């Protein structure tokens, strides 16, 4: 049994089978990212936030006051949870199996996202590394800017198919392609 049979991604059937070359505008699905939900105990919000920003190879995503998602493509969830164990006042829950990480990039990325995200994503309004919880294609999710023209979306697994299909539809006029990334 191969690795991909053991960990079958929820978008497996929607991504595989289409062997198109990657266009400038592209939607990449992370195959097995680590996504942890972190809550800070009352009064420890700032110290937990600083500690989360200091974690290497992982990026904290702002969800609300005293709540973050910690996302990593390279580290395992267990490894990350161990690294967070020492942070005082941080309550960590592994959400990797319950969330899906999408990465959308390209010169037309803001035009595509403007159709389904009501957050101002202009480079001057939404800085690099900034993130926000918002409605994404009518469903709650988290959006973060990870590059000049690159955004990452974290969406609950059960909503992923709907969000994915809608993003592809929004990006069709710009030739949005898709694939899996490790």
């Amino acid at each position, binding site marked *: 049994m191969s690795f991909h049979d053991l960990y079958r991604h929820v978008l497996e059937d929607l991504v595989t089978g289409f062997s198109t070359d990657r266009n400038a505008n592209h939607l990449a699905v992370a195959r097995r990212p680590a996504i942890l939900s972190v809550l800070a105990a009352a009064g420890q919000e700032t110290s937990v936030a600083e500690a989360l920003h200091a974690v290497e190879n992982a990026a904290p995503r702002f969800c609300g*006051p005293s709540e973050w998602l910690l996302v990593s493509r390279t580290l395992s969830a267990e490894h990350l949870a161990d690294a967070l164990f020492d942070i005082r006042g941080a309550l960590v829950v592994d959400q990797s199996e319950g969330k899906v990480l999408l990465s959308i990039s390209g010169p037309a990325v803001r035009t595509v996202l403007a159709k389904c995200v009501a*957050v101002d994503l202009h480079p001057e309004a939404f800085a690099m590394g900034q993130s926000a919880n*918002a*409605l994404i294609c009518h469903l*709650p999710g988290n959006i973060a800017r990870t590059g000049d023209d690159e955004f990452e979306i974290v969406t609950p697994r059960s909503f992923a198919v709907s969000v994915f299909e809608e993003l592809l539809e929004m990006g069709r006029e710009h030739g949005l392609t898709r694939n899996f990334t490790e």
Partner: protein
Amino acid sequence: MASLITCPHCGTRPKEEFSIRGAAGPERPSPTARDEDWHRYVYVRDNPKGRYQEHWHHVAGCRRWLVVDRDNLSHEVFGVTDAAEFERARVAK
């Protein structure tokens, strides 16, 4: 998306991201208060025309309860505060 609410945690967002609970004005009586007071708190509302304060839940954003001070006729928004801060300010009064 005409109605925009400026969430103190998330910034300006459309009303579709929120869920409205109702008036933020009524104060919860003490557990030993008379039945009439509890009846008034649970069931009786003024339903004013014009400016009033409402509990809004930012469901699709920070998931915090907010108090939106708005005019329900013109939908002009005068201010949005976190419900916890609103309650703290009310207790301090």
